[in-house]
């Protein structure tokens, strides 16, 4: 009986969505650069420039993917990025010998914030939206209070991270690739990844299967905060110093959620992955580049950006039958 029914059933081609997004965005980019006679943007330097637009958001979004998959959300990443960048720059303070210490300090803050987020969400049962929003406000407040006293800049040798090349490939892209690969590997190959999907898909089921769901929620939050910290380190490297507004002005909180959802990960968790997320980040980077090439009025660009976010998600939700709130 099962055999017959299954043969007629379609398996949903989840894997095609990221590819379609990337191809679509890449084509748009190519067509626009040719149409506006800016074929230089199709050179390796142009493409590397396009890809570098992805790095900060991409790294953050990888962590956001994990949190969304586990059924949570992290809105504190933007402020955490600022904190990480400022702390790293302050600790390094131009000294190459303090680079390791600076990195360690930023990552440590990431772990602490992630732990706090995770504990509040899993143990105090606070809605993750509120929990991370609240923690984000705490970070923002503490940072602006302390920033005056946190001067510093990163040493030139640390800026290699953002400006260096290996075999013609920007180091930053390798960093992004590494984070993506790590997250993708964990999700698709390891026991941790499999169980993460379980926790996000249905926490009760996961608990009945003997999975300590709280640990996964906390773990995912720590992962998200650490990626945000890494993103902050990258920005400190790229910008030479940290500023308390770098994360918020960058809009990394809501943008990271948007790209993950555009990439096909369910807001409610349990389905999705980093491939889609990276596709979503690529779409965002392409929007910026294409709007520049087309000389779109910045305000009109803002309107279009909003509509693109909505319509790219609507493209695969509107056929659904279930209720969405």
């Amino acid at each position, binding site marked *: 009986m099962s055999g017959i029914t299954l043969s007629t059933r379609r398996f949903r081609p989840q894997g095609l969505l990221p590819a379609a997004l990337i191809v679509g965005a890449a084509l748009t980019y190519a067509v626009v650069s040719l149409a506006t006679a800016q074929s230089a943007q199709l050179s390796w330097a142009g493409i590397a420039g396009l890809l570098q637009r992805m790095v900060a958001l991409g790294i953050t979004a990888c962590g956001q993917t994990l949190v969304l998959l586990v059924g949570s959300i992290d809105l504190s990443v933007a402020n955490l990025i600022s904190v990480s960048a400022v702390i790293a720059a302050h600790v390094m303070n131009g000294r190459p010998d303090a680079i390791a210490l600076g990195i360690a300090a930023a990552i440590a803050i990431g772990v602490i914030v992630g732990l*706090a987020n995770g504990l509040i969400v899993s143990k*105090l049962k606070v809605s993750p939206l509120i929990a991370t929003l609240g923690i984000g406000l705490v970070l923002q407040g503490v940072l602006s209070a302390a920033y005056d006293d946190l001067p510093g800049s990163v040493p030139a040798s640390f800026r290699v991270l953002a400006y260096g090349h290996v075999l013609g490939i920007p180091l930053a892209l390798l960093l992004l690739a590494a984070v993506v690969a790590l997250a993708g590997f964990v999700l698709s190959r390891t026991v941790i990844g499999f169980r993460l999907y379980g926790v996000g898909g249905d926490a009760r089921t996961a608990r009945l299967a003997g999975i300590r769901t709280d640990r996964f929620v906390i773990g995912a939050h720590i992962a998200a905060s650490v990626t945000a910290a890494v993103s902050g380190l990258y920005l400190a490297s790229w910008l030479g110093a940290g500023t308390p507004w770098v994360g918020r002005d960058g809009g990394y909180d809501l943008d990271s959620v948007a790209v993950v959802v555009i990439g096909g990960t369910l807001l409610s968790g349990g389905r999705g992955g980093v491939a889609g997320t990276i596709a979503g980040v690529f779409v965002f980077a392409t929007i910026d580049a294409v709007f520049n090439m087309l000389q779109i009025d910045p305000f009109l660009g803002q309107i279009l950006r909003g509509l693109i976010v909505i319509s790219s998600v609507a493209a695969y939700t509107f056929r659904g039958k279930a209720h969405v709130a």
Partner: protein
Amino acid sequence: MKRKTAWRLGVSGAALMVATTLTATAWAQTATSDSTAMAKEFAYEKALMSAKPIGPADKPWLQSLSSATVDTAKYKKAPPYRVCFSNASVSNPWRVVGWKVMQAEAELHKSEIASLSYADAQDKDDKQISDIRAFVTGGKCDVLIVSPHTSDALTPVVEEACKVLPVITFDRSVNTTCPVTAVRTIGGYAYGIAGATYVVDHMPKGGKLLELRTAPGIDVFETRDDAAAKIFTDAGIKPIGVEYTGADNAKTKAVVSDYLSRFGKIDAVWVDFGAMSVAVAEAFEDAGQDYPIITGEDQEDYLQKWKQEGFKGIAPTYPAYQWRTALIAALDVLQGKPVYGPNWILPQPIITSANLDQYVNAKMPPLHYAACGCEGMPGYPERWGGKP
């Protein structure tokens, strides 16, 4: 049992956060700011305030307070020019006015300018870096104008760009001398000095001063406040409060109202950003009190209110005409003309009750900046939203 554990965990989590916070803050206190550098810049800007600018008196955007020039013969090219402009953002009215000034300036040079390509970084440092890189790799620019969002952040990419084409910065600058010139005005200290000196001179002895600030940690506001704080301290004035309002009118009014309720009377309000001055005035109106001294900026709503109500005011400016200067400098460079540099220091007019009428213009919209140098430009006043 379980719930207890949960709470204990939560509480210890919160405690951990607080502890981290306190440690971070305490640790931060130990850092010292470099006060000698500040004193030097303060003195420098103070001196510039009384210096006489070179150049046509009726065209302040062509004036300079430093006579040094840069030879630009090596950049000389035949017109028309392709000008590229990487802008930090147009997220506040001053930048909007300025961007329109630059576009109008471009119209004045129609024959020389083939294109003015624009990239808006939306206040994101990393986007601005990418934007500049895209301009450089795109190879469609003869000159690059940059209005950096953050000085440190943009330095490396501007250095990259310098290797390929002439670069002009304005508003904020970058920490490198590679741009052909950096268009700037005297600076934040001068702004702070002007307003604070006026307050010191006109406030009754022992009067109550409230300082309103926009947000901590932003260079331009920090320098304005540093200068003002120094003037106030030297005059023995201790403000009754220093409050951050985020330049939000509603919050400004609320803060001022609360201070009025606590102190009964306030004699002067110093602001580090003129956008909130009118809200300050309104708070006094709503409380039924007389206006105190209210410092401001060259934003029309403040100038109009000042003229209308006749309170004691002063408006140091951060002139928006520097947006024209940047483009003029860019064209000069491509024509091989020497330009003021490496710093083109523009004068920074101060509006007082004596010259207020020169600037105030009821036909201009409230968020217009009077020191735009745009009165004779094509499309004035409609381009800036004014009534003909």
